């Protein structure tokens, strides 16, 4: 077998592993491919996507940059770099890369879908809808695009529309993760908690690493306990800011709390200062213990999930 054939087979295998939620497996396969062909731009780009899935964002950026340097006119490295920017929360740069991908490969629904995803994240839902319509015009039965349409409807709060698109996606592919999660999300918002839980479990049976399914299950658990639900809402709100901003926000809260205590003491209001200290202590204890309790509650649920044979 020639190196080209060997590498092509490895890339095919890595794509399959990625599609089945196995980024670690894909990374090892691509390591083999790049050991044989270190200048293969597609392999670097695919590795960047696998690293994004594995949350290794620094390495993902390096790989996507290498892919772009090796072949700047190829569409796929732009898709990979867009995903790296998206993972870093740099939506401007992600949109630019996805637009470049669409420009270079207008016939690929994946580009329009990725663009729609970033536009949705930026709150430009009308433009996101247009991008998804273009993807549907290319392939009206693509379950990924139908599921993306359901997610978009869920974002805009149109639950009936979300359910309709999710069911259309599931009619094409009964195991589609995104569609199961979007349908679950719509049912949960309607108060159908148990049905949503079943859909999350069904999605996890297909892919136990599915972030969307785990999030849906966490939302279900958050509905069942107000104490944990409060932490979940705080956590999801806080998650939007990215790690660096999160640290800065927490430090700002700490500085404000300490300033308040000093000021209150200086004004002779020792009881109020004491109250502020108790409040801060309670906040610290709550944010320390809640994630552990939440995780334990989620793990109990996950222990019941029966994985599909061969996962």
């Amino acid at each position, binding site marked *: 077998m020639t190196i080209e054939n060997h590498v092509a087979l490895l890339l095919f295998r890595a794509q399959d592993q990625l599609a089945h939620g196995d980024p670690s497996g894909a990374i090892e396969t691509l390591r083999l491919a790049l*050991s044989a062909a270190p200048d293969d731009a597609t392999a670097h780009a695919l590795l960047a996507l696998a690293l994004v899935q594995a949350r290794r964002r620094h390495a993902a950026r390096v790989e996507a940059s290498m892919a772009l340097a090796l072949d700047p006119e190829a569409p796929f490295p732009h898709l990979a770099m867009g995903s790296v920017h998206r993972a870093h929360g740099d939506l401007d740069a992600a949109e630019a890369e996805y637009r470049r991908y669409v420009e270079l490969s207008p016939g690929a629904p994946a580009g329009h879908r990725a663009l729609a995803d970033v536009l949705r994240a930026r709150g430009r839902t009308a433009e996101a809808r247009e991008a998804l319509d273009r993807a549907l015009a290319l392939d009206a039965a693509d379950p990924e695009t139908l599921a993306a349409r359901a997610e978009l409807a869920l974002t805009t709060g149109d639950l009936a529309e979300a359910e309709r698109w999710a069911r259309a996606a599931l009619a094409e592919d009964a195991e589609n993760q995104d569609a199961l999660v979007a349908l679950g999300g719509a049912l949960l918002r309607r108060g159908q908690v148990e049905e949503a839980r079943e859909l999350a479990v069904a999605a996890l049976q297909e892919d136990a690493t599915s972030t969307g399914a785990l999030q849906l299950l966490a939302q279900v658990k958050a509905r069942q306990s107000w104490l944990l639900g409060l932490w979940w809402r705080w956590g999801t709100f806080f998650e939007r800011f990215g790690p660096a901003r999160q640290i800065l926000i927490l430090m700002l809260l700490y*500085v404000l709390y300490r300033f308040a205590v000093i000021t209150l003491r200086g004004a002779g209001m020792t009881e109020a200062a004491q109250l502020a200290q108790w409040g801060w202590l309670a906040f610290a204890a709550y944010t320390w213990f809640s994630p552990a309790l939440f995780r334990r509650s989620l793990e109990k649920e996950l222990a019941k999930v029966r994985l599909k044979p061969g996962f």
Partner: protein
Amino acid sequence: MAGVHVGTATYRIADEPSPGRLARFAVNPIWPMLATMLAGSWLGAPWFVFNAFALGSATRRREVAWAVGAVLLSAAMLQGFFFAAEHRLLPLVVLRYGSVLVTAVRLTGAYFTYGLQDASFDLHRYFGGPVVTGAPLLIVGMLAPSHRFFDPLLPYVGKLGVLLLNVVLG
């Protein structure tokens, strides 16, 4: 190209650690983080630096920069506050607020170092690297009379210098 050996995975990904002899002393970075909070930067910052090398972390330069930079910046801030107070540029009460900012800078540096090192630690464990517990060192650090550490430097740096070292590293 046919016949070339293609079965060995030699490609190295950018963030993968390259542990050396110190790898057996690697700890979960939560321990230096706790050391910074509970014992002081005199223990936390050097421990972060040591751990960066023990893990063979791919981001060790940035980790060292954050750990050391935060201590240096907080020292400079404190020096600035003292200077301002000495020359009556600021009222004394401002020093109280200033000391909070100094602590916040130290902790921010520690959190950023922790964030970087935690990712390297995950990979270190993924590749089966050895891990030791940092609890004994943390306990020793917490029990150590850190407020007396810098007293022997009194003839060289003066009272103000000792105070500065205590606030920044203690």
